Every structure is written in structure tokens, then in C-alpha cells.
């Protein structure tokens, strides 16, 4: 007997979203990207907005998101998703538009596009998958790489003096008046997955109500880039990333939480 046969359907909390295409995920096993993709599709499905949603996934491990998300999608150049999404929102204001970006994408090459789309308060959702590293290109240093953390381009660990501090771009963005809601989540436990799901739903509700920009950071492991097993990576994330990037609401309904 399979596990799923034992669980009554009404008690089943996590399953594969009907809006996932069923194509095999190109993400590494145990990586947070898969869960994040699935959650977003689950919420869009639940809200019944899949036929009015346009997703934008740029370069990074997420570039192939259109292989997995069964909705209309545009692939964007590295870092440019917020600009691409801006035009979609401006020319089709009644659509639900989201971007799905990594930290290299959103906080390095696309900093300008990110800050300005947020500052204009575009009516869309930005998903920011922060794994503290460049996953796709094989584990180079990202703006969010922690102090002392080793990567292929900081082989002795990130040094603040020469490489700068890990960038808290989410806190920076939260200060912009155009931004309506900002929160930070993680996907390493059921409890956290549920919390992230609630936030994702709220973000698309904000779009429906034309509240402006909703920004959701999701801390995720990159077991390949960090050179750990998925379990070790999740534990490392809790121990090392949470203190620097604390989870929770940062801005709610246009007001900063202090």
C-alpha cells in the first residue's frame, strides 16, 4: 500500500499542483525551487486565475520554469524580469503578473530594474528566491552570500573588506513608498511552507485589489552550490541564514513593521 492510499484526500496538505505540467523538474533533488514553483501554481489554481496570469522567469536555475508552470510565461534576460513585467502590467492592467527571480538575478545584475519597478509600485508580485549563491553557473558568490561563506569565486570565504557585506535588498526595497507588502519566508519545514503559501495568496490578492507591488523573499537551500546534502543544507540555512535574513513580515499593507 502506498502512503497516499492511507491519507484521506481531505487530509492531504501537500501534493503536486494540477497546474504543474508534470515535466521532470530540472532543479537538483532537495532544492527549494521545486517547492516554490509548486506553491505558486497551487495558489494560482486555487484562486482560479490561471487563465489571466502571466509569469516572467529570467536567467538562473528558474529559467526553465515555463517547462513546469502550466500558464503563459515569458523568459527574460538576466536581471530584467521586473522591466519585462512592468510593460506587461502597464499594457494589460487586468492581468496577474509575477516575476520569479534568484538572488544573482534580482540583487546583482538586475538591481536597477528591481529597485525601479518596486519604486514605481507596479501592480505585480516579485518572488525572490534567495539561496545566497549563483546556482545555475555552478556556485559563485552572490550579493547575498554570507560573510565567510565559501563559493567558487570566494574560495577563502566572503571577505567584507574586499567584497562588501551581504546585501539585504529586501529590507532596502521595503523602504520604498511604492511597495505595498514585503515578507521573508523559508520552505524547510511544513509549517514554513504553509506560512509561505498564505503570503503568496495574499500577494495575488493584493494584485487583484490593485494595491501595487508585493515582494516575497523565499530563503532556499542550494545543496549543489553549497556542496551539502539537502538535509545538511536546510540545517545550515537555519543556523546561518536566518540570523542575517530573519523570517517574517517586513511591510504589511504599506506599513513597515518595526
Amino acid at each position, binding site marked *: 500500500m502506498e502512503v497516499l492510499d492511507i491519507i484521506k484526500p481531505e487530509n492531504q496538505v501537500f501534493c503536486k499542483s494540477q497546474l504543474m505540467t508534470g515535466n521532470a523538474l530540472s532543479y537538483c533533488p532537495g532544492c527549494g525551487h521545486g517547492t516554490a514553483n509548486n506553491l505558486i501554481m497551487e495558489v494560482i489554481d486555487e484562486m482560479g486565475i490561471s487563465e489571466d496570469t502571466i509569469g516572467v522567469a529570467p536567467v538562473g536555475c528558474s529559467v526553465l520554469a515555463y517547462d513546469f508552470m502550466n500558464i*503563459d*510565461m515569458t523568459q527574460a534576460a538576466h536581471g530584467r524580469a521586473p522591466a519585462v513585467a512592468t510593460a*506587461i502590467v502597464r499594457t494589460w492592467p487586468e492581468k496577474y503578473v509575477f516575476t520569479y527571480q534568484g538572488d544573482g538575478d534580482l540583487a546583482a545584475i538586475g538591481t536597477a530594474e528591481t529597485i525601479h519597478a518596486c519604486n514605481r509600485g507596479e501592480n505585480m508580485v516579485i518572488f525572490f528566491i534567495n539561496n545566497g549563491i549563483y546556482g545555475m553557473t555552478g556556485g559563485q558568490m552572490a550579493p547575498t552570500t554570507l560573510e565567510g561563506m565559501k563559493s567558487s569565486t570566494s574560495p577563502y570565504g566572503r571577505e567584507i573588506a574586499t567584497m562588501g557585506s551581504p546585501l539585504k535588498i529586501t529590507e532596502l526595497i521595503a523602504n520604498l513608498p511604492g511597495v505595498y507588502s514585503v515578507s521573508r519566508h523559508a520552505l524547510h519545514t511544513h509549517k514554513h511552507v504553509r506560512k509561505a503559501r498564505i503570503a503568496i495568496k495574499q500577494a495575488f490578492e493584493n494584485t487583484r485589489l490593485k494595491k501595487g507591488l508585493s515582494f516575497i523573499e523565499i530563503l532556499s537551500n542550494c545543496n549543489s552550490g553549497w556542496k551539502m546534502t539537502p538535509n545538511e543544507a536546510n540545517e545550515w540555512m537555519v543556523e546561518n541564514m536566518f540570523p542575517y535574513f530573519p523570517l517574517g513580515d517586513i511591510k504589511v499593507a504599506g506599513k513597515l513593521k518595526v
Partner: protein
Amino acid sequence: MSELKLMKGNEALAEAAIRAGVDAYFGYPITPQTEIIEYLMNERPENRTGMVVLQAESEVAAINMVYGAASTGKKALTSSSSPGISLKLEGISYLAGAELPAVIVNVVRGGPGLGTIQPSQADYFQSVKGGGHGDYKLYVLAPASVQEMADFVEDAFDIAFKYRAPVLILSDGLIGQMMEKVILKDQKPRWTDAELIEKNGDWAVTGKKGRERNIITSLDLQSEKMEARVHRLQKKYEQMEKEDLRFEKINCDDADYLVVAYGSSARISQKAVELARAKGIKLGLLRPITLFPFPQQELFELANQVKGILSVELNTGQMVEDVRLAVEHKVPVEHFGRTGGIIHTPEEIVAALEQKIINNGSFRHHKTRESSLL
């Protein structure tokens, strides 16, 4: 109603864009084309037609906004000048790769680098030889008057949607800044969302209502698929050469000598043709209106008739390479250029013709930079 007006080239283009039913303009200021966004902002086209106008944070953002709007099947326009176009090349390559229709205007100034704000044709190579990364070409329209600045917007969108490909309008600081009379066409309505879905619904991302999902991407990790995509693009370029080549011939029927020039150089060369003829030199002008596709066959045939060809350009010798390729060494081909924002006088062009072609009829493969620039 169509209207007769006295306008700057840049303004005429902006007004024509509203009247052509363009859905969105995204841009960033740079001389000598800033009047385009200024005019649009001042006109409030959102009230006239619902057209969206947005000043982006950079040229990179502007071209990616064009990419976004084009992904959804809308008519999206951007404009810039040389250093800004260099920044847009990333997005232009993505537009070509993802097979998206869009119109980009380059009102060229002198370079390299920050260069000068004066007119130039130094971006010819960048425009017709790809420019951005990868195997792609742009359909390039070169206006030579304020009227063409206006007319080419609609033509460019027709081509862009016919081929699902980005189209470049290659102007320069002279055409952009000068004032001339222009006849503006009647206002065309923008496509309604229903019309757009009817026309572009098979590929555009508008939300998958009533159909399977659409995907816009330029990524093909499988080599066979990527090769097929590149071949598909090449087929479009071949079709453009067959169906949409444009050029103009002035006084060519009895010509002994030929000037080849486009845009503002062609305007000045037209006067040079008159001056030469008054002196008894039978000079003709071939003006490529599209720089890609290039009037190769026409040049090849004219080379059977004329004794020599002068390529007149505001650069140190770029289009002349394409003229030489087309002519296949049948007759001498020389280049006459000015740079730095200086434009030729018609008299200089006639003098260059006499010096480099008529009195120097020998077939020369090699020439010095000085003789090229006069």
C-alpha cells in the same frame, strides 16, 4: 483627418506613432532624440488613444519593457541614440531570438564612446551586421526626410508583425532635428484586446484563456532545436530580401557614375547629382531605403552601366564594404566620408567624385585613410 504640419523629424515620428495605433513607448533621454519622449509625454497619448508612455530607468530597462509588451502581442516602440542603442543590444538580441515584433529607433550621433551629439552614420555596421550577440539581423529602414520619419513607423510595425522580428529605424541627428513639412496620416485605432488575441493569440502571452499556454523564450538547450531556430530566423531574412527590399533610384537611367548614399547623406547627394549634371557629369544616385535587406542585385546591374561608384557616408567607410561586395570588383568603388558631426557639402561630394573616381579611374584595391576621408 490627414494634416499638413511643420515639424521636427523626432516630433513627426512621435506623432505618427500615436496615429499608427502604437500601444506603448518606453524610452530614456539622450540627445539628439529626446524630443520623441518629450513630445509623447506632452501629448498625453493615454487620453488620445490609450497608448502607454513610460520613462524607464535606463535603455536596458526600456528595451526589456519593449520585450515585455511585445511578448503580449502589443505594438511596442522605443527610441534612443548611439550609446543608448549599445545598451539596448542585449534586449534586441533577445527580441530577435524570441521572435518578437518591435520597433527600435536609432537617431545616430557620432562615436565611439560618448562621441558627439552631432549627426553621424557611424552605427551602420552595428545596425546591419547584427550588433548584439548571436546569429540575427534587423530589418533596417533609413529615413531621409521628416516625412519618412513619420511614414516609417507604421511600415516598420507592419514588417515587425509580418515576420515577428524587431525592426530598426536608422535615422540620424540631422533628420531627427531638422524641421520640414510633413503630411500626417489619420488616426488609426489601436487593436482592441479581442483583435489582438485574434491576430497574435497563437503565440502571444495574454493569459491562456480558451487555449493551451504560450511561451516566449529564446532558450533552446538542445542543439538540434537551437539550430532549427537559427535556420528559421535565416529563412525570415531570405524572405525579407525577396519581398521587402526598398530603394530609390535618382537619375540613374543614363548615369555614367553613381553615388550610393542613405539617410541624410542621400539628401545631400541628391543636390550633388544636380551640381554634377550642371557640369556635364552624368551622375546618378542609388539610395538604399532598407539597409538590410541591401539592394545588392540593383548595384550589381548598375555596375554594368557605370564607370565608377562613390559611397557617400557620415563615417570612415562602412556601407562601402557592402557596395563592394555587391559590385564584385566590376568597377572602382570608393568611399567619401565626413565624421565628428561634420556633414558633407554637395560641392565636396562632386569634388570627391572627380578626384577619387573620374580622375582616378584605375582599379585600386588599396587606399589610404586620408584619401578615403578627403
